[in-house]
């Protein structure tokens, strides 16, 4: 937590009240979206429970005694969903998956890594992509399996890769 640097808005009390002016609200949601993604990224957290979230430091700044209301949180998450960063796990909107990079963006990162190393037309295992030493410096190192799979499926639909079973992948 010590490493996470909050944006200036976090200490700005009206940031926690959804703004009536549409232009201002747009800027506000913009700032909220990047805050949520950065925070989740720093926490290496994918799942967000909306009832728990109300008391998380993300939406509740104790120092200035301001919190984003449930409606506010829903508005922010809905905005993120539109951008492809959030997927609801249930219809009631209680739990969601937050992806600070969309599967497509992850896919592009992996694909760039592969092409940079002329590893096209070779077969890799999913494990070696995310867990072996070779990729230690890559952002997708340690990426969760389900998300990697989604990323590769994206590449597959673009014709850049083909999944082989659940464990291997070949790039084109």
């Amino acid at each position: 937590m010590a490493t996470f640097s909050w944006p200036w808005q976090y200490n700005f009390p009206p940031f926690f009240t959804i703004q009536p002016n549409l232009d201002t609200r747009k800027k506000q949601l913009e700032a909220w979206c990047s805050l949520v993604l950065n925070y989740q990224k720093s926490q290496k957290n994918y799942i967000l429970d909306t009832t728990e979230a109300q008391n998380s430091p993300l939406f509740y700044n104790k120092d200035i005694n301001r919190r984003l209301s449930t409606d506010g949180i829903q508005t922010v998450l809905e905005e993120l969903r539109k951008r492809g960063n959030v997927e609801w796990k249930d219809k009631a909107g209680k739990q969601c998956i937050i992806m600070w990079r969309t599967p497509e963006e992850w896919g592009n990162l992996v694909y760039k890594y592969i092409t940079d190393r002329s590893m096209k037309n070779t077969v890799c295992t999913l494990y070696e992509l995310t867990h072996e030493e070779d990729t230690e410096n890559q952002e997708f190192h340690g990426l969760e399996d389900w998300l990697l799979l989604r990323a590769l499926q994206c590449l597959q639909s673009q014709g850049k890769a083909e999944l082989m079973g659940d464990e291997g992948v070949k790039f084109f």
Partner: protein
Amino acid sequence: MHRRGAGIAAIKNKNLAQARYKDKGTEIAEGQVAQMAKQMETFKVHLENFASQHKEEIRKNSEFRVQFQEMCASIGVDPLASSKGFWAEMLGVGDFYYELGVQIVEVCLATSHRNGGLIGIEELRDRVVKSRGKKSQDISIDDLLRAIKKLKVLGNGFSVITCGRSYMVQSVPGELSMDHTSVIQQAQNTAYVTVSQIKKTLNWETERIHRALDYLVKEALVWTDDQSSETQYWFPSLFAGAMNASS
């Protein structure tokens, strides 16, 4: 009844006298003008010498620059009137202010998404100095105000609002009335105002307060905060925590 005749000779005499007075008057005036011109010429020469001798200092030292500007103004010389003028060429001051103007516009644009186009002069100066890099000379508030004044030729996009002892620069079109600036002044220290606070200090009708605040909200200059006993109207442009924000 005796009546002095208005003879032709009398009229002629009168006209002649008048013509003589006139001639003498012109003569004296000419002499004065010539002397004045000579004095001004000498002064100008001295000022030019002074300017070229202290060129570096004028460019580097902001206080010196203010005094030089004032001196020029008192004799009706505007070193910024044209970038091609003698003064601008001699001193490069024209370029200095035009450059500053461009940097001011850049800073205002870059921060407008946050502050709605209203920025405190101190923050503006900090950001301009930062954008000029380390080798930059001192920039004073006076320099900024002069440069902004020059931006007026581009239209009414930029205006300076006096707030107590400080200034704020507005870079979005949209007129701020006296009421609005009074409200901004009220927020100088805390960065926010409330209806009851304005009522207490300015003694306005509630209706008038709401009209002013609603306008500021509409212009995206203030944000509203509903999570305290009374709605607070916050100015991001006055909020200290935002002054050093990179975005």
